[in-house]
């Protein structure tokens, strides 16, 4: 077997991309932070003593996270069919597995909080803006609109989730915090994949910026309202919400259609 290079940064760009899009890389990466966890948290992490109002707010928040994760699960799975090359298909397969895990651990967390029928509860508590976003995302996937679907899913949705989960984890009960921390680590790969894929496409075909700006105009408000609702439920102070869209807006600026 070939020996790993002494300096990671000396790798050829194509070799680096091939490596990080592989299942081999994914296995070794997730092993580092998921080994030893059960349903996304350490088995010994105690359950918090939440009052009824806190528990209700947390259930509503987690139900909406489940809607977002279901959208990403169906989206990533569907995108495999239209991905332009093998490495991208393989990466999306790993993302699909990540999203399935997220949905599973969040659903399990709902059970731990006393929700006996999580699927019915998710349906009952799902916010309409997020459901509308999901519908539009899956429409783009079904329409085989690769750049628009990747933008909607891996830039808009993932960046917003990344920010919200990060903010939520700072004030969450210990078990929810650990579940969210594991998800955030997965999201780093997803947002990076989305931005890099779009960046390469836009470099080759700058005219796509107009198309993506139109998608952004349509979908931004839906996601922003969804996550504003989540912030209300989490109880995040107004002052901290300025951070909510920062990473997303920075990505859009780097891609050149802010």
């Amino acid at each position: 077997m070939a020996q790993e290079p002494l300096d990671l940064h000396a790798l050829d760009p194509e070799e680096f991309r091939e490596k990080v899009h592989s299942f081999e890389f994914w296995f070794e990466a997730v092993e580092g932070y998921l080994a030893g966890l059960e349903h996304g948290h350490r088995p010994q992490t105690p359950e918090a003593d939440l009052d009824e109002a806190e528990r209700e707010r947390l259930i509503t928040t987690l139900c909406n996270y489940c809607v977002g994760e279901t959208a990403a699960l169906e989206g990533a799975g569907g995108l495999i069919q239209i991905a332009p090359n093998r490495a991208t298909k393989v990466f999306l397969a790993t993302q699909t597995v990540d999203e399935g895990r997220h949905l599973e651990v969040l659903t399990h967390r709902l059970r731990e909080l006393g929700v006996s029928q999580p699927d019915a509860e998710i349906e009952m508590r799902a916010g309409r803006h997020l459901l509308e976003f999901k519908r539009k995302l899956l429409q783009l996937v079904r329409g085989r609109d690769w750049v628009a679907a990747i933008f909607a899913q891996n830039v808009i949705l993932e960046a917003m989730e990344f920010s919200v989960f990060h903010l939520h984890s700072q004030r969450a009960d210990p078990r929810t915090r650990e579940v969210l921390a594991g998800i955030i680590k997965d999201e780093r790969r997803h947002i990076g994949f989305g931005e890099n894929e779009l960046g390469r496409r836009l470099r080759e075909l700058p005219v796509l910026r107009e198309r993506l700006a139109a998608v952004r105009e349509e979908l931004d408000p839906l996601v922003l309202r969804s996550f504003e609702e989540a912030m209300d439920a989490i109880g995040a102070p107004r002052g901290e919400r300025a951070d909510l869209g920062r990473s997303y807006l920075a990505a859009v600026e780097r891609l050149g259609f802010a």
Partner: protein
Amino acid sequence: MTPAEPLQEPSEPAAGSEGPRQRFVLDDQGFDEVPKKYRRFYRRWNGEGDSLGPNEALCPVCKIVVRSTRELRPGDRVYCMACMTRLVIVRSAAGHLEARVVY
């Protein structure tokens, strides 16, 4: 946080007129999001109070600190494995080094 222990290597050829680069021995600082063999190339950014060493750059996409075995200079290429991004080191208008995404 100490970025890494520098080892001066005067025998290394200088890049341009800037003189020899410092070399660094990287230690594993517990960054668990990449395979074990690559962990030493990364660390978490600890926010206010943290600072970057001459061999470190902050990934603008995912805010992880990327570390190199050598002092970084404009034009150097580094990779953020946590978000799979290729970066190039540039000198900002303010005069400090920063990483920019290369698509």
